[in-house]
Protein backbone atom coordinates (compact mmCIF):
# COMPACT_ATOMS: atom_id res chain seq x y z
CA UNK A 1 0.00 0.00 0.00
CA UNK A 2 1.91 2.99 -1.28
CA UNK A 3 1.18 6.70 -1.18
CA UNK A 4 2.18 8.55 -4.35
CA UNK A 5 2.37 12.21 -5.33
CA UNK A 6 1.82 13.49 -8.86
CA UNK A 7 2.18 16.87 -10.58
CA UNK A 8 2.16 17.51 -14.35
CA UNK A 9 5.89 18.18 -14.58
CA UNK A 10 7.01 16.22 -11.51
CA UNK A 11 9.87 17.21 -9.22
CA UNK A 12 13.25 15.99 -7.96
CA UNK A 13 13.85 12.31 -8.66
CA UNK A 14 10.26 11.85 -9.93
CA UNK A 15 9.76 8.66 -7.92
CA UNK A 16 6.40 9.82 -6.54
CA UNK A 17 7.51 9.48 -2.90
CA UNK A 18 6.55 13.02 -1.83
CA UNK A 19 5.80 16.43 -3.35
CA UNK A 20 9.48 17.27 -3.77
CA UNK A 21 9.95 14.05 -5.75
CA UNK A 22 6.52 13.93 -7.41
CA UNK A 23 5.86 11.80 -10.47
CA UNK A 24 5.46 13.71 -13.72
CA UNK A 25 2.66 12.53 -16.03
CA UNK A 26 4.86 10.06 -17.86
CA UNK A 27 6.12 8.42 -14.65
CA UNK A 28 2.58 8.41 -13.26
CA UNK A 29 1.33 6.60 -16.38
CA UNK A 30 4.04 3.93 -16.01
CA UNK A 31 3.15 3.42 -12.35
CA UNK A 32 -0.65 3.50 -12.93
CA UNK A 33 -0.50 0.88 -15.64
CA UNK A 34 2.32 -1.17 -14.11
CA UNK A 35 2.85 -1.20 -10.38
CA UNK A 36 -0.34 0.26 -8.91
CA UNK A 37 -1.63 -1.98 -6.11
CA UNK A 38 -4.74 -2.31 -3.96
CA UNK A 39 -4.69 0.19 -1.11
CA UNK A 40 -2.52 2.72 -2.92
CA UNK A 41 -3.35 6.37 -2.43
CA UNK A 42 -2.46 8.85 -5.16
CA UNK A 43 -2.47 12.59 -4.52
CA UNK A 44 -2.58 14.77 -7.60
CA UNK A 45 -2.11 18.53 -7.80
CA UNK A 46 -1.80 21.04 -10.65
CA UNK A 47 1.36 23.00 -11.35
CA UNK A 48 1.83 26.23 -9.36
CA UNK A 49 0.29 28.19 -12.27
CA UNK A 50 -2.78 25.91 -12.23
CA UNK A 51 -1.87 24.01 -15.39
CA UNK A 52 -2.93 20.38 -15.68
CA UNK A 53 -2.41 17.10 -17.48
CA UNK A 54 -2.91 15.79 -21.01
CA UNK A 55 -3.53 12.12 -21.77
CA UNK A 56 -1.42 10.75 -24.61
CA UNK A 57 -3.11 7.31 -24.64
CA UNK A 58 -5.79 5.45 -22.71
CA UNK A 59 -4.84 5.37 -19.05
CA UNK A 60 -5.82 1.91 -17.82
CA UNK A 61 -4.97 0.22 -14.52
CA UNK A 62 -4.55 -3.54 -14.56
CA UNK A 63 -5.37 -4.10 -10.91
CA UNK A 64 -8.42 -3.52 -8.76
CA UNK A 65 -8.72 -2.26 -5.24
CA UNK A 66 -10.49 -4.37 -2.65
CA UNK A 67 -13.26 -3.69 -0.19
CA UNK A 68 -10.71 -3.23 2.59
CA UNK A 69 -8.03 -1.65 0.43
CA UNK A 70 -9.54 0.58 -2.25
CA UNK A 71 -7.34 2.55 -4.61
CA UNK A 72 -7.78 6.26 -3.91
CA UNK A 73 -7.05 9.05 -6.38
CA UNK A 74 -7.41 12.44 -4.75
CA UNK A 75 -7.02 15.88 -6.31
CA UNK A 76 -5.63 18.62 -4.07
CA UNK A 77 -5.00 22.34 -4.43
CA UNK A 78 -1.89 23.57 -6.22
CA UNK A 79 -0.62 25.19 -2.98
CA UNK A 80 -0.66 21.89 -1.08
CA UNK A 81 2.54 21.02 0.75
CA UNK A 82 1.24 18.65 3.44
CA UNK A 83 2.53 15.09 3.17
CA UNK A 84 0.04 13.49 3.16
CA UNK A 85 -2.50 16.20 2.40
CA UNK A 86 -5.32 16.93 4.84
CA UNK A 87 -8.99 17.69 4.20
CA UNK A 88 -8.43 21.42 3.83
CA UNK A 89 -6.06 20.68 0.91
CA UNK A 90 -8.85 19.07 -1.13
CA UNK A 91 -9.52 20.95 -4.36
CA UNK A 92 -12.89 22.32 -5.46
CA UNK A 93 -14.16 24.11 -8.56
CA UNK A 94 -11.43 25.23 -10.95
CA UNK A 95 -8.78 24.39 -8.35
CA UNK A 96 -9.33 20.72 -9.15
CA UNK A 97 -6.56 19.26 -11.32
CA UNK A 98 -7.64 19.03 -14.97
CA UNK A 99 -7.06 16.02 -17.21
CA UNK A 100 -7.64 16.82 -20.87
CA UNK A 101 -8.26 13.47 -22.48
CA UNK A 102 -8.57 14.11 -26.22
CA UNK A 103 -9.89 10.88 -27.72
CA UNK A 104 -8.61 8.82 -24.79
CA UNK A 105 -10.10 7.36 -21.67
CA UNK A 106 -9.05 7.80 -18.05
CA UNK A 107 -10.11 4.40 -16.77
CA UNK A 108 -10.41 3.12 -13.26
CA UNK A 109 -10.80 -0.39 -11.88
CA UNK A 110 -13.11 -1.95 -9.33
CA UNK A 111 -13.01 -0.50 -5.82
CA UNK A 112 -11.46 2.76 -6.95
CA UNK A 113 -12.30 6.05 -5.28
CA UNK A 114 -11.75 9.20 -7.33
CA UNK A 115 -12.10 12.63 -5.77
CA UNK A 116 -11.69 16.28 -6.72
CA UNK A 117 -10.62 15.96 -10.35
CA UNK A 118 -11.81 17.41 -13.67
CA UNK A 119 -11.88 15.52 -16.96
CA UNK A 120 -12.64 16.90 -20.37
CA UNK A 121 -12.45 14.98 -23.59
CA UNK A 122 -13.82 14.30 -27.02
CA UNK A 123 -13.79 10.52 -27.05
CA UNK A 124 -16.47 8.60 -28.85
CA UNK A 125 -16.07 6.24 -25.93
CA UNK A 126 -16.03 7.95 -22.54
CA UNK A 127 -13.69 10.22 -20.68
CA UNK A 128 -13.54 8.43 -17.39
CA UNK A 129 -14.89 5.29 -15.76
CA UNK A 130 -14.40 1.83 -17.09
CA UNK A 131 -16.30 -1.24 -18.16
CA UNK A 132 -14.46 -3.26 -15.56
CA UNK A 133 -14.94 -1.03 -12.54
CA UNK A 134 -17.54 -2.17 -10.01
CA UNK A 135 -18.03 -0.70 -6.54
CA UNK A 136 -16.43 2.62 -7.46
CA UNK A 137 -16.94 5.95 -5.79
CA UNK A 138 -16.53 9.24 -7.62
CA UNK A 139 -16.82 12.40 -5.52
CA UNK A 140 -16.57 16.08 -6.41
CA UNK A 141 -15.43 15.50 -9.98
CA UNK A 142 -16.40 17.20 -13.20
CA UNK A 143 -16.53 15.26 -16.47
CA UNK A 144 -17.28 16.72 -19.88
CA UNK A 145 -17.42 15.00 -23.24
CA UNK A 146 -17.68 17.35 -26.21
CA UNK A 147 -18.04 14.55 -28.75
CA UNK A 148 -20.36 11.59 -29.17
CA UNK A 149 -19.34 9.61 -26.09
CA UNK A 150 -20.29 9.47 -22.43
CA UNK A 151 -18.80 11.85 -19.89
CA UNK A 152 -18.72 9.42 -16.99
CA UNK A 153 -19.48 5.72 -16.92
CA UNK A 154 -19.25 3.40 -13.98
CA UNK A 155 -20.14 -0.21 -13.51
CA UNK A 156 -22.20 -2.12 -10.97
CA UNK A 157 -22.87 -0.78 -7.47
CA UNK A 158 -20.97 2.44 -8.03
CA UNK A 159 -21.83 5.80 -6.53
CA UNK A 160 -21.32 9.31 -7.84
CA UNK A 161 -21.55 12.14 -5.32
CA UNK A 162 -21.42 15.89 -5.87
CA UNK A 163 -20.27 15.64 -9.48
CA UNK A 164 -20.99 17.75 -12.56
CA UNK A 165 -21.34 15.87 -15.84
CA UNK A 166 -22.26 16.85 -19.37
CA UNK A 167 -21.97 15.16 -22.75
CA UNK A 168 -22.86 17.17 -25.81
CA UNK A 169 -24.12 14.30 -27.94
CA UNK A 170 -24.57 11.34 -25.64
CA UNK A 171 -25.28 10.17 -22.12
CA UNK A 172 -23.60 12.31 -19.48
CA UNK A 173 -23.67 9.75 -16.68
CA UNK A 174 -24.13 6.06 -17.30
CA UNK A 175 -24.55 3.81 -14.29
CA UNK A 176 -25.20 0.14 -13.99
CA UNK A 177 -26.88 -2.17 -11.49
CA UNK A 178 -27.30 -0.48 -8.11
CA UNK A 179 -25.82 2.78 -9.39
CA UNK A 180 -26.41 5.88 -7.31
CA UNK A 181 -26.19 9.54 -8.24
CA UNK A 182 -26.28 11.80 -5.20
CA UNK A 183 -26.24 15.62 -5.30
CA UNK A 184 -25.07 15.66 -8.91
CA UNK A 185 -25.52 18.33 -11.56
CA UNK A 186 -26.28 16.57 -14.84
CA UNK A 187 -26.78 19.00 -17.68
CA UNK A 188 -26.75 20.12 -21.29
CA UNK A 189 -26.47 16.65 -22.73
CA UNK A 190 -28.23 14.53 -25.25
CA UNK A 191 -29.32 12.30 -22.39
CA UNK A 192 -28.59 13.12 -18.75
CA UNK A 193 -28.31 10.03 -16.59
CA UNK A 194 -28.91 6.55 -17.91
CA UNK A 195 -29.98 3.76 -15.61
CA UNK A 196 -31.55 1.94 -18.53
CA UNK A 197 -29.51 -1.19 -18.24
CA UNK A 198 -29.48 -1.05 -14.47
CA UNK A 199 -31.79 -2.35 -11.80
CA UNK A 200 -31.93 -0.67 -8.41
CA UNK A 201 -30.63 2.74 -9.53
CA UNK A 202 -31.10 5.83 -7.39
CA UNK A 203 -30.90 9.55 -8.01
CA UNK A 204 -31.04 11.64 -4.85
CA UNK A 205 -30.83 15.42 -4.64
CA UNK A 206 -29.75 15.83 -8.25
CA UNK A 207 -30.36 18.62 -10.72
CA UNK A 208 -30.89 17.42 -14.27
CA UNK A 209 -31.35 20.14 -16.87
CA UNK A 210 -31.14 20.96 -20.54
CA UNK A 211 -31.13 17.42 -21.95
CA UNK A 212 -32.35 17.18 -25.51
CA UNK A 213 -33.76 13.65 -25.28
CA UNK A 214 -34.13 12.28 -21.74
CA UNK A 215 -33.21 13.76 -18.38
CA UNK A 216 -33.00 10.25 -17.01
CA UNK A 217 -33.70 6.80 -18.36
CA UNK A 218 -34.88 4.38 -15.72
CA UNK A 219 -34.37 0.72 -15.01
CA UNK A 220 -36.40 -1.64 -12.83
CA UNK A 221 -36.75 -0.56 -9.21
CA UNK A 222 -35.52 2.95 -9.91
CA UNK A 223 -35.89 5.69 -7.31
CA UNK A 224 -35.68 9.43 -7.81
CA UNK A 225 -35.87 11.47 -4.62
CA UNK A 226 -35.48 15.18 -3.83
CA UNK A 227 -34.33 15.97 -7.37
CA UNK A 228 -35.15 18.74 -9.83
CA UNK A 229 -35.57 17.96 -13.51
CA UNK A 230 -35.75 21.01 -15.73
CA UNK A 231 -36.05 21.65 -19.47
CA UNK A 232 -35.58 18.11 -20.78
CA UNK A 233 -37.45 16.70 -23.74
CA UNK A 234 -38.63 13.88 -21.46
CA UNK A 235 -37.76 14.29 -17.78
CA UNK A 236 -37.76 10.60 -16.93
CA UNK A 237 -38.19 7.93 -19.56
CA UNK A 238 -39.16 4.74 -17.76
CA UNK A 239 -39.64 2.64 -20.86
CA UNK A 240 -40.85 -0.86 -20.08
CA UNK A 241 -39.51 -1.05 -16.55
CA UNK A 242 -41.47 -1.52 -13.34
CA UNK A 243 -41.19 -0.17 -9.84
CA UNK A 244 -40.30 3.43 -10.56
CA UNK A 245 -40.36 5.39 -7.31
CA UNK A 246 -40.61 9.19 -7.38
CA UNK A 247 -40.84 11.18 -4.16
CA UNK A 248 -40.29 14.87 -3.43
CA UNK A 249 -39.14 15.90 -6.88
CA UNK A 250 -39.75 18.95 -9.02
CA UNK A 251 -40.34 17.98 -12.61
CA UNK A 252 -40.43 21.13 -14.71
CA UNK A 253 -40.14 20.42 -18.43
CA UNK A 254 -42.24 23.18 -19.86
CA UNK A 255 -40.33 24.63 -22.79
CA UNK A 256 -42.67 23.37 -25.51
CA UNK A 257 -43.57 19.77 -26.35
CA UNK A 258 -41.80 18.39 -23.29
CA UNK A 259 -42.97 15.53 -21.07
CA UNK A 260 -42.35 15.03 -17.35
CA UNK A 261 -42.42 11.25 -16.93
CA UNK A 262 -43.20 8.66 -19.57
CA UNK A 263 -43.56 4.91 -19.27
CA UNK A 264 -44.61 2.36 -21.86
CA UNK A 265 -48.15 1.14 -21.47
CA UNK A 266 -48.69 -2.06 -19.49
CA UNK A 267 -46.22 -1.26 -16.71
CA UNK A 268 -48.43 0.10 -13.94
CA UNK A 269 -46.39 -1.07 -10.95
CA UNK A 270 -44.96 2.36 -10.07
CA UNK A 271 -45.17 4.67 -7.07
CA UNK A 272 -45.08 8.45 -7.03
CA UNK A 273 -46.18 11.10 -4.59
CA UNK A 274 -45.34 14.55 -3.24
CA UNK A 275 -43.83 15.67 -6.54
CA UNK A 276 -44.37 19.02 -8.23
CA UNK A 277 -45.45 18.73 -11.87
CA UNK A 278 -45.12 21.58 -14.35
CA UNK A 279 -44.63 20.17 -17.82
CA UNK A 280 -46.17 20.51 -21.25
CA UNK A 281 -47.35 16.93 -20.67
CA UNK A 282 -46.93 15.81 -17.07
CA UNK A 283 -47.20 12.05 -17.37
CA UNK A 284 -47.65 9.27 -19.89
CA UNK A 285 -48.74 5.87 -18.51
CA UNK A 286 -47.86 7.04 -15.02
CA UNK A 287 -49.86 8.13 -11.97
CA UNK A 288 -48.85 11.22 -10.04
CA UNK A 289 -50.14 10.19 -6.62
CA UNK A 290 -52.62 11.90 -4.27
CA UNK A 291 -50.35 14.68 -2.97
CA UNK A 292 -49.05 15.96 -6.30
CA UNK A 293 -48.54 19.70 -6.71
CA UNK A 294 -49.75 20.68 -10.15
CA UNK A 295 -48.42 24.17 -10.75
CA UNK A 296 -45.33 26.22 -11.59
CA UNK A 297 -42.70 25.49 -8.89
CA UNK A 298 -41.35 29.03 -9.35
CA UNK A 299 -37.67 28.22 -9.56
CA UNK A 300 -35.66 31.38 -8.99
CA UNK A 301 -33.56 31.61 -12.16
CA UNK A 302 -33.10 28.20 -13.75
CA UNK A 303 -31.80 29.65 -17.03
CA UNK A 304 -28.81 30.82 -15.00
CA UNK A 305 -28.51 27.66 -12.92
CA UNK A 306 -30.36 28.94 -9.87
CA UNK A 307 -32.83 26.17 -9.09
CA UNK A 308 -33.78 27.40 -5.63
CA UNK A 309 -37.43 28.17 -4.90
CA UNK A 310 -38.59 31.74 -5.37
CA UNK A 311 -40.99 33.53 -3.06
CA UNK A 312 -44.49 32.11 -3.36
CA UNK A 313 -43.40 28.72 -4.67
CA UNK A 314 -46.07 26.08 -4.01
CA UNK A 315 -43.28 23.61 -3.21
CA UNK A 316 -42.47 25.08 0.20
CA UNK A 317 -43.50 22.49 2.82
CA UNK A 318 -45.24 20.43 0.13
CA UNK A 319 -42.91 17.43 0.22
CA UNK A 320 -43.37 14.23 2.15
CA UNK A 321 -43.06 14.87 5.87
CA UNK A 322 -42.59 11.46 7.39
CA UNK A 323 -41.61 12.67 10.87
CA UNK A 324 -45.04 12.11 12.42
CA UNK A 325 -45.20 8.60 11.06
CA UNK A 326 -41.78 7.43 12.17
CA UNK A 327 -41.83 8.86 15.66
CA UNK A 328 -39.68 11.96 15.25
Amino acid at each position, binding site marked *: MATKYVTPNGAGSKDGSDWSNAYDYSAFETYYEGSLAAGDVIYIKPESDGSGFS*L*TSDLTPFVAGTITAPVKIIGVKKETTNTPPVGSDYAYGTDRPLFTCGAYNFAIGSYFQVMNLRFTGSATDYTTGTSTGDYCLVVNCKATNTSSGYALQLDNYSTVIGCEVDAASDIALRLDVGGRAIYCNIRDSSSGASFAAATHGTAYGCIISGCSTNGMTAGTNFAVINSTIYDCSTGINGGAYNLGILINNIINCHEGGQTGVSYDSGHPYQYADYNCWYNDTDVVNFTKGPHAVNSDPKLKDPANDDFTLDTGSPCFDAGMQPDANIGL
Partner: protein
Amino acid sequence: MVNRKYSGRDFTDVRLTDKSSKEFNGTEIRNSCFYQQYIPGKTPPYDVFPRDMTNVHFVCCNLDNVKIPKECTLEKCTNKIIIPQNDLTDWFCDSNGNPIEPLDKRKRIKLKLPYGPDSIPLTKAEQRPVQAKLDELREQVKKAQKIVTKSILSSLKELG
Protein backbone atom coordinates in the same frame (compact mmCIF):
# COMPACT_ATOMS: atom_id res chain seq x y z
CA MET B 1 12.28 27.70 -21.78
CA VAL B 2 8.86 26.36 -20.80
CA ASN B 3 6.06 28.18 -22.55
CA ARG B 4 3.71 28.94 -19.64
CA LYS B 5 0.95 30.34 -21.84
CA TYR B 6 0.55 27.15 -23.85
CA SER B 7 1.55 24.48 -21.29
CA GLY B 8 -0.86 22.39 -19.24
CA ARG B 9 -3.92 23.74 -21.06
CA ASP B 10 -6.83 22.39 -23.04
CA PHE B 11 -6.73 23.51 -26.68
CA THR B 12 -9.02 20.77 -27.97
CA ASP B 13 -10.51 21.91 -31.31
CA VAL B 14 -8.80 25.30 -30.95
CA ARG B 15 -6.98 26.70 -34.00
CA LEU B 16 -3.97 28.89 -33.21
CA THR B 17 -3.03 29.69 -36.80
CA ASP B 18 -3.76 33.38 -36.35
CA LYS B 19 -1.33 33.71 -33.44
CA SER B 20 2.12 35.14 -33.89
CA SER B 21 4.79 32.46 -34.21
CA LYS B 22 6.85 34.54 -31.80
CA GLU B 23 4.61 33.25 -29.01
CA PHE B 24 5.88 29.73 -29.72
CA ASN B 25 9.28 29.77 -31.41
CA GLY B 26 12.13 28.27 -29.44
CA THR B 27 9.97 27.26 -26.46
CA GLU B 28 8.99 24.01 -24.77
CA ILE B 29 5.27 23.19 -24.45
CA ARG B 30 4.34 20.59 -21.84
CA ASN B 31 1.18 18.66 -20.92
CA SER B 32 -1.24 20.37 -23.31
CA CYS B 33 -3.98 18.86 -25.41
CA PHE B 34 -4.22 20.16 -28.98
CA TYR B 35 -6.42 17.29 -30.19
CA GLN B 36 -8.66 18.17 -33.14
CA GLN B 37 -11.83 16.23 -33.74
CA TYR B 38 -12.38 14.88 -37.22
CA ILE B 39 -14.10 17.24 -39.64
CA PRO B 40 -16.29 15.23 -42.04
CA GLY B 41 -14.86 15.18 -45.56
CA LYS B 42 -11.49 16.58 -44.53
CA THR B 43 -8.78 14.04 -43.69
CA PRO B 44 -6.51 15.03 -40.77
CA PRO B 45 -3.96 16.25 -39.84
CA TYR B 46 -5.12 19.82 -39.57
CA ASP B 47 -3.26 23.11 -39.39
CA VAL B 48 -3.36 24.25 -35.78
CA PHE B 49 -0.19 26.28 -35.28
CA PRO B 50 1.10 29.35 -37.14
CA ARG B 51 2.63 28.30 -40.46
CA ASP B 52 6.02 29.84 -39.69
CA MET B 53 6.25 28.40 -36.17
CA THR B 54 9.60 26.66 -35.67
CA ASN B 55 11.83 24.98 -33.13
CA VAL B 56 9.15 24.14 -30.58
CA HIS B 57 9.72 21.14 -28.30
CA PHE B 58 6.50 19.39 -27.21
CA VAL B 59 6.56 17.18 -24.10
CA CYS B 60 3.66 14.93 -22.97
CA CYS B 61 1.24 16.66 -25.33
CA ASN B 62 -1.73 15.31 -27.24
CA LEU B 63 -1.19 16.28 -30.87
CA ASP B 64 -3.57 13.81 -32.48
CA ASN B 65 -4.91 15.00 -35.84
CA VAL B 66 -2.47 17.93 -35.69
CA LYS B 67 0.01 18.90 -38.41
CA ILE B 68 3.42 19.35 -36.79
CA PRO B 69 5.33 22.32 -38.21
CA LYS B 70 8.83 21.68 -39.50
CA GLU B 71 11.73 21.60 -37.04
CA CYS B 72 9.47 20.98 -34.08
CA THR B 73 10.22 17.96 -31.88
CA LEU B 74 8.02 15.64 -29.85
CA GLU B 75 8.86 13.85 -26.60
CA LYS B 76 6.37 11.41 -25.02
CA CYS B 77 3.60 12.90 -27.15
CA THR B 78 0.90 11.36 -29.28
CA ASN B 79 0.49 12.46 -32.90
CA LYS B 80 -1.87 9.97 -34.51
CA ILE B 81 -4.67 10.23 -37.04
CA ILE B 82 -8.01 9.47 -35.39
CA ILE B 83 -11.24 9.25 -37.38
CA PRO B 84 -14.59 7.91 -36.15
CA GLN B 85 -16.02 5.12 -38.29
CA ASN B 86 -19.48 3.69 -39.01
CA ASP B 87 -19.29 1.62 -35.81
CA LEU B 88 -19.45 4.94 -33.90
CA THR B 89 -15.98 4.35 -32.53
CA ASP B 90 -12.75 6.32 -32.97
CA TRP B 91 -10.13 4.46 -35.03
CA PHE B 92 -6.42 5.06 -35.50
CA CYS B 93 -5.93 5.59 -39.23
CA ASP B 94 -3.05 5.78 -41.68
CA SER B 95 -2.03 8.98 -43.41
CA ASN B 96 -4.63 8.36 -46.12
CA GLY B 97 -7.38 8.07 -43.54
CA ASN B 98 -7.75 4.29 -43.78
CA PRO B 99 -8.69 2.69 -40.44
CA ILE B 100 -6.05 0.51 -38.78
CA GLU B 101 -7.40 -0.34 -35.33
CA PRO B 102 -10.05 0.99 -32.93
CA LEU B 103 -9.10 2.91 -29.83
CA ASP B 104 -11.11 0.48 -27.74
CA LYS B 105 -9.16 -2.54 -29.06
CA ARG B 106 -8.27 -3.75 -25.55
CA LYS B 107 -11.93 -3.86 -24.56
CA ARG B 108 -12.85 -5.65 -27.79
CA ILE B 109 -10.21 -8.31 -27.16
CA LYS B 110 -11.55 -8.80 -23.65
CA LEU B 111 -15.10 -9.13 -24.98
CA LYS B 112 -13.98 -11.35 -27.88
CA LEU B 113 -15.17 -8.83 -30.44
CA PRO B 114 -13.49 -8.39 -33.83
CA TYR B 115 -11.23 -5.36 -34.14
CA GLY B 116 -10.01 -5.44 -37.73
CA PRO B 117 -11.09 -2.82 -40.28
CA ASP B 118 -13.35 -5.42 -41.92
CA SER B 119 -15.52 -5.34 -38.78
CA ILE B 120 -16.63 -1.80 -39.63
CA PRO B 121 -20.18 -1.84 -41.01
CA LEU B 122 -20.92 -0.28 -44.38
CA THR B 123 -23.67 1.86 -42.88
CA LYS B 124 -23.78 3.70 -39.61
CA ALA B 125 -24.43 1.39 -36.64
CA GLU B 126 -26.98 2.27 -34.00
CA GLN B 127 -24.70 1.38 -31.12
CA ARG B 128 -20.98 1.01 -30.44
CA PRO B 129 -19.91 -2.68 -30.61
CA VAL B 130 -18.53 -2.69 -27.06
CA GLN B 131 -21.70 -1.20 -25.63
CA ALA B 132 -23.90 -3.54 -27.66
CA LYS B 133 -21.96 -6.54 -26.38
CA LEU B 134 -22.13 -5.35 -22.77
CA ASP B 135 -25.88 -4.82 -23.05
CA GLU B 136 -26.24 -8.30 -24.54
CA LEU B 137 -24.24 -9.80 -21.65
CA ARG B 138 -26.41 -7.95 -19.14
CA GLU B 139 -29.55 -9.39 -20.72
CA GLN B 140 -28.06 -12.87 -20.51
CA VAL B 141 -27.27 -12.36 -16.82
CA LYS B 142 -30.83 -11.15 -16.18
CA LYS B 143 -32.29 -14.21 -17.91
CA ALA B 144 -29.97 -16.54 -15.97
CA GLN B 145 -30.95 -14.87 -12.70
CA LYS B 146 -34.64 -15.39 -13.48
CA ILE B 147 -34.07 -19.08 -14.18
CA VAL B 148 -32.08 -19.54 -10.95
CA THR B 149 -34.73 -17.69 -8.91
CA LYS B 150 -37.51 -19.84 -10.38
CA SER B 151 -35.52 -22.97 -9.70
CA ILE B 152 -34.85 -22.00 -6.05
CA LEU B 153 -38.50 -21.11 -5.48
CA SER B 154 -39.69 -24.39 -6.91
CA SER B 155 -37.18 -26.30 -4.75
CA LEU B 156 -38.42 -24.45 -1.67
CA LYS B 157 -42.02 -25.34 -2.54
CA GLU B 158 -41.08 -28.98 -2.87
CA LEU B 159 -39.44 -28.86 0.56
CA GLY B 160 -42.74 -27.58 1.90
